């Protein structure tokens, strides 16, 4: 299984970026091989609109079925749902700790996008 984490840096020790669409990197952790890879999200950071849609699409293409992030907006959530991806909230911690917290069942699933701006 692959887990995608919105992150401020390319390393597993990097802090989770609470912004999903405009995070600097999307880290992908493969639970089967224990390997990490980093998707550079710089292009999405420059977008005037709909960065979340672009990031969600990248996550779907990576094959990840789980996202760990701060908050995912309604449009990105719609794309992720289509790709069968579940979203879990995590606070300020490293990507490594976020994966650990998720595996221990300590992260809550985001059910809807709430009132975040589109």
């Amino acid at each position, binding site marked *: 299984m692959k887990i995608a984490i919105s992150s401020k840096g390319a390393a597993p020790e990097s802090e989770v970026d609470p912004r999903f669409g405009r995070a600097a990197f999307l880290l992908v952790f493969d639970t089967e091989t224990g390997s990490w890879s980093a998707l550079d999200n710089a292009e999405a950071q420059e*977008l005037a*609109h*709909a*960065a979340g*849609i*672009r990031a*969600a*699409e990248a996550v*779907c*293409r990576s094959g990840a079925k789980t996202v760990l992030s701060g908050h995912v907006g309604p*449009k990105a959530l*719609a*794309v992720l749902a*289509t*790709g069968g991806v579940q979203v879990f909230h995590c606070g300020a911690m490293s990507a490594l700790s976020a994966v650990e917290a998720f595996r221990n069942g300590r992260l809550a699933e985001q059910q809807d996008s709430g009132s975040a701006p*589109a």
Partner: protein
Amino acid sequence: MMRIAVASGKGGTGKTTVATGLALYLSRRQSVHVIDCDVEAPNAALLLHPAIFLAGPVMRPVPAIDESRCDHCGKCSDACRFNAIAVTASRVVLFPEICHSCGGCTEVCPRGAITERPRAIGEFADGSVGKIQFTQGSLNAGETATVALIRAVRQMEREADVLLLDAPPGASCPMIAAVEDTDCVVLVTEPTPFGLNDLRIAAEAVRRMDLRAGVVINRDGIGDARVDRFCASAGLPVLGRIAEDRAIAEAYSRGEHPFETVPAFRAAMAAIAQSLGAEASA
């Protein structure tokens, strides 16, 4: 036909009051068509009270996907500058409300899986009041296709001696769409630091479009003389002034046109029309 756009940088300076006031003044002797291009907040009708004879949706093309033909190659998503299409392994997700109708996705799809379908982005209403013909556009909530709707209502321009376009505030795409291809832009401002700051921006936008422009100073008498000094230094003629007058605000607050109830306002409209050269020679 003389095409006049009434614009401003700042909101609430009196664009609609001036545009409709000029329409009421000029329609005494000429045929006038008012188009309310402030489609995100059209309110010229609140001052003119036109009878509406024709109204309906304004459509624009957005993509429709034939999933049976799509192989999820993602070329449409790559082509979309606005991220209105996301392609996942098994499905395409469309966000038609952010689509700008460029047709790029339809063009690049190698399997002919994308066609265009109409989507309503807003409404138009068309009618008249006295000798004034009236048209307005009204954007649906949540839509971003402001410019497309402004262009659509401007296509409804009719034969008239004078066309008056009530522009949206600001100096970006919607304002540009409302003032382009006009003979003159009337920039309504107020003599305050806020009015001046936003007038500078709007005047610069209009200057870059090589449009003839002039300024109407509304609520004249409040603030200071810096708007006048700016107009002089920028070579912008002051077309007229509307003195600060509680009676104008009171009429406006009741939805009555100050043109009907405040003689000084009526005189100001006459002066502006004369400065514009919009009055038919007797």
